[in-house]
């Protein structure tokens, strides 16, 4: 399913999107297949599946640890596409990975593999718009969305460049850094949501872990909420993983729904 179609479907229901991230292969490829099902059952609208890279400089310690578990569990790009291709879900799938893995596979091969394994979008946190022309052309050729991030520090001219190139949704980085009070989330995020002027759906990520926060983000005008570390934390604990993933997805989705029903 295409990302745009999912957002249109949700729009008709007057509902925000829950985008759930887990790292593929954490701790094994088979676990990932089951976890994806749990997340969707709980209410996730889009699944982001990390393709683990040895040097994940843009990720916090929680996701970094998940990436290490996945690599130790034998995850490679070949296994990744096989695992994802075997998922039978009617939910848009997005690959999140670092540029070197795409570069090494060959840009066109990578994009082709995405298309044939049912992936609808690509996020590359270490690929700024300035370096993305070749990948963007291939993505449009194979009808895959290339999703870009904007940060509170993103300035006017760069913002325009990113918005003109990004498709699927725009990933808004909610706040700087890894820790901070919840009030910070609200003020800087509200401002960023207002500054990002585009027809493309806006989804906010970084540091969101419960239904109340998710509701605040949607209330501030976002079209979707991205949650990663909170799910990866559950996987790290290894206890009742499927039930808890589903429960957290449900809590987040309930928070999101509550806003639009008002």
């Amino acid at each position: 399913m295409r990302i745009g179609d999912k957002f249109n479907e949700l729009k008709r229901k007057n509902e925000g999107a829950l985008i759930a991230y887990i790292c593929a292969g954490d701790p094994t490829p088979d676990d990932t297949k089951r976890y994806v099902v749990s997340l969707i059952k709980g209410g996730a609208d889009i699944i982001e599946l990390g393709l683990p890279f040895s040097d994940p400089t843009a990720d916090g310690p929680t996701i970094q640890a998940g990436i290490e578990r996945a690599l130790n569990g034998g995850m490679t790009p070949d296994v990744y596409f096989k695992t994802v291709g075997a998922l039978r879900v009617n939910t848009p799938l997005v690959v999140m990975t670092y540029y070197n893995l795409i570069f090494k596979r060959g840009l066109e091969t990578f994009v082709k593999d995405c298309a044939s394994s049912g992936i609808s979008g690509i996020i590359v946190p270490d690929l700024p718009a300035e370096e993305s022309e070749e990948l963007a052309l291939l993505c449009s050729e194979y009808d895959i969305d290339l999703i870009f991030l904007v940060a509170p520090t993103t300035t006017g001219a760069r913002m325009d460049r990113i918005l003109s190139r990004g498709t699927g949704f725009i990933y808004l980085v909610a706040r700087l850094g890894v820790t901070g009070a919840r009030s910070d989330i609200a003020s800087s995020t509200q401002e960023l949501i207002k500054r990002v002027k585009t027809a493309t759906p806006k989804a906010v990520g970084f540091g969101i872990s419960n239904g109340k926060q998710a509701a605040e983000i949607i209330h501030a005008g976002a079209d979707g909420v991205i949650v990663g570390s909170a799910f990866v934390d559950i996987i790290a604990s290894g206890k009742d993983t499927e039930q808890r993933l589903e429960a957290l997805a449900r809590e987040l989705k309930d928070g999101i729904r509550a806003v639009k029903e008002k």
Partner: protein
Amino acid sequence: MKQEIRSTKFGRYGGQFVPEILMPALEELTEQYERYRDDPTFNKELDYYLRDFAGRPSPLYYARQLSREYGVKVYLKREDLVHGGAHKLNNTLGQALLTRYMGKKRIIAETGAGQHGTACAMAGAAFGIKTEIYMGAKDTQRQRMNVYRMELMGTKVIPVKSGSQTLKDAINEAMRDWATSVETTHYMMGSVVGPHPYPAMVRDFQSVIGKEVRTQIMEKEGQLPDSIVACTGGGSNAMGIFYPFIDDDVDLFAVEAGGSGMKTTEKEALHSASLCMGEEGVLHGMRTKVLQNKYGQILESSSIAAGLDYAGVGPELAYLADTGRIRPCSSMDSEALEAFHDLCRLEGIIPALESSHAVAYVKKAAESGELGDIVVINISGRGDKDLETVMGVRK
């Protein structure tokens, strides 16, 4: 020159492959560096610190006994005599001065073995700028002396406990810090690596080495050397001594760490020879030659010299290697150790194990004649820090 720094690339290498959150910081740094790099007041002040604080110019010494033994006329560029015992300070003084000109109040950096961190601490103290260094928790234990040294100079050393608790994780943590503190903080990169403008900026600050060599060799020999040999990890001492000779008829040898052999497995390389053995990739914000497996996962590199132990290399060196302007080569751990002892015994100079790789290559290559008659070796640092390692091997 102005034109050159505006491009973020060296051929197809270099660029800025970083998270969006850091892009505005790099834009600002590029702008500020372009503003001050040719500013007479800035350069006058930098010259003052290089001379009166760092002790420059460093001598170019004719190594008579070593020349006789190796069969070629060898000059040593004595960066080991720079304050702190290595070339690293040339760069940190430049960046600390830039920090002051930019009006920033704080310096952060990462360090592995502690050499760059120490150079940051010296520059931070000299300029009265608050300095904080991220260091893997494992490294803080292995390198307690360097931690203490930094702390003596007023630097705060922050142990990083995530991941493998080594350099890699220290880089991550420093990057996260910078993303939140960029308005008041300068990130001090220690080599000619990372996203633009660092490779060009660090090269410029280190070019003082090559500029001095040019004047000194003309005084002593009345001609340029036939070749210049420098060890190469990230490549800052190599770019520093090479760059002023780039348009001359001088052969430039970049000696990488051959470790215990030119072999790799799925996860590890037994060497750190990115120019010789690496493949094109994107790591730490730059497109360059990288030691990686067939999927693009980065390999753990290896070398007896901590300063050469890096899976990537400066993008300009990758470019110059492709164009044939520099010649990548390597020395193994065992060869570097042998050369280390040669220099100690024959000249009364204890070189860093990093620099010993360059000496070792001269020993190997002199006979074939490929180095010509007059060779300059960059002795990038002194070897006091390596004595335990060397003693361990002797046992």
